[in-house]
């Protein structure tokens, strides 16, 4: 036997024996992606700004000086003031707190429930699959905003309830995506191999299937953060989410809408904030996907 081993492994010289760390490898690959790194830095900075908002913001975000209303950007008010004389920069800084929290929380909740339901439905199939997915179809058949409003009217107003409503409403989409990916991945021979070597169903899903469906989940999740941010804005606009005078980007956008032509900075800056944040999440998602896939390694 040892001769056989020698014969077939001949010519193979052991390489350096440094230990391999998947985390370090992932980080090394992510660092190469400049767009993803820029997005990561942007989002990290945004998070810091959100956390330290009271120390950074130059003005009180909720109390304005009426005399200073609708001012154009100036040295005093870098991004101008709104119709109630509040400093827009300060409101955007404080708004980051709500937008980031709502986006991340809503996606985290929706993604975890959706992943559990979707992988159970996809893996076991049959009746369970039908039961879960038809229920998801029912939820998807309502316009999501309408359903969110319905949930809000049951739960009551406020940011926390908005998070819950948005996560319930967006959850079926994650369940669907996870189920679809699980369906295609579970047909792979390595899943059968996992069963043949004695793995239980739970271990097969966790160790062999989910790691291989992570790419679409991450990409959808980052896109979902932006959707969640926008839905919060919509709820705020309808008076159900963030309550005035609290600052929130979507609410600012909605409120500034009526002044769009004579004071465009009212909608422009919150709009830019949303766009940049959403874009950063999407680019980061792409970068994560590439970095997490060992097959794309150069």
């Amino acid at each position, binding site marked *: *036997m*040892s001769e*056989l*081993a020698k*014969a*077939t*492994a001949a010519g*193979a010289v*052991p*390489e350096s*024996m440094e*230990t*391999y760390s998947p985390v370090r490898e992932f980080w090394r690959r992510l660092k190469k992606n400049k767009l993803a790194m820029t997005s990561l830095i942007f989002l990290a900075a945004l998070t810091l700004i959100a956390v330290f908002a009271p120390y950074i913001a130059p003005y009180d975000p909720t109390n304005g000086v009426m005399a200073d209303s609708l001012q154009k950007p100036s040295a005093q008010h870098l991004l101008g003031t709104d119709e109630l004389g509040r400093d827009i920069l300060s409101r955007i800084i404080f708004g980051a707190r709500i937008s980031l929290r709502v986006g991340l929380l809503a996606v985290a909740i929706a993604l975890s429930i959706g992943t559990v339901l979707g992988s159970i439905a996809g893996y076991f199939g049959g009746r369970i699959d039908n039961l879960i997915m038809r229920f998801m179809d029912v939820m998807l058949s309502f316009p999501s905003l309408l359903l969110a409003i319905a949930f809000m009217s049951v739960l009551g107003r406020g940011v926390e309830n908005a998070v819950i409503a948005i996560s319930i409403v967006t959850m079926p989409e994650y369940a669907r995506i996870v189920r679809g990916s699980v369906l295609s991945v579970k047909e*792979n*021979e*390595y899943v*059968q*191999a*996992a*069963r*043949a*070597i*004695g*793995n*239980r169903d739970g*271990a097969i899903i966790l160790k*062999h299937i989910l*790691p*291989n469906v992570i790419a679409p989940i991450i990409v959808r999740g980052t896109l979902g953060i932006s959707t969640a941010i926008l839905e919060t804005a919509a709820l705020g606009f309808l008076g159900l989410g963030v309550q005035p005078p609290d600052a929130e980007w979507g609410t600012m956008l909605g409120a500034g809408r009526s002044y769009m032509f004579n004071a465009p900075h009212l909608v422009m800056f919150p709009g830019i904030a949303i766009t940049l944040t959403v874009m950063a999440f999407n680019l980061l998602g792409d970068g994560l996907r590439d970095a997490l896939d*060992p*097959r794309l*390694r150069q």
Partner: protein
Amino acid sequence: MQPLLEVKNLTKYFPVKKGLFGRAGSVVKAVDGVNFKIYPGETMGLVGESGCGKSTTGRVILRLLEPTAGEIYFKGKNILNLPNEEMRRLRQKMQIIFQDPYASLNPRMTVGQIVGEPLKVFGLASGAELEKRVQKLLEYVGLAGYHARRYPHEFSGGQRQRVGIARALALNPELIICDEPVSALDVSIQSQVLNLLKDLQREFNFAYLFIAHGLNVVKHMSDRVGVMYLGQMVELADAKELYSTPLHPYTQALLSAVPVPDPKVKKKRIILKGDVPSPVNPPSGCRFHTRCFKCLDICSRQQPEFKEVKPNHWVACHAVQ
């Protein structure tokens, strides 16, 4: 001697869904009443055209697919009645090597994790002990210990197949089902892997169910060979006997198609008419009668019995006495 594995009347139908509400319509009769035995330490080959149910047979034996009917005895115990947990433990004794080495290894796991997983699942080794055994297994299949830290995509097809073999060996099984283990490999690599499989059998003394469509490969590997056609076993005999005196017309046709590496040899090839009929709606009587060159009247009416016409030579054909 008690057979290691005995398969009785094994049947697997796949339902073909029809209609808007998924009413079960017709069925694909992938395996339809197959019988055979495998003894400890031997290699039984299983040949047939693609779609004849060889792979399904292999998967059903491991209960990766649940059979529609029939019995499977492993060391005298019917494994189809086993509760999940007991079946799971029995998997230590029966392993499988897959056809496609590109699909059978989880791309997110290192080779070391893949090979060590069976040991981990059954709690047979951990930590440094696990690492040592993984290294040992990799050496058995002709890879080097440092390969354990690499990912499957860093290997060639032949090397990947060796990883799959190491994984199957990890639990020290008594039966390994080889589901066309070399048909996805280059010809130059095929013989290396086949010889490895033979050497390992000599060393560890397990039995193989060797599924393949290449007759040469099966001849090289097997002690006994079964020939399948449309979900049924048509002939089963010792390898030498089967290749020297095939009795079933289908086997004769298959063997006449094997190329001989000598341009001067003029062989008479038996060309079969038509295609393999659909397993959804197989022909009446003998399933081969539509393409058979020895077809009798009775063939379309009555299914021939699978009987022992010579010692250890079984065949299902009306034309064979």
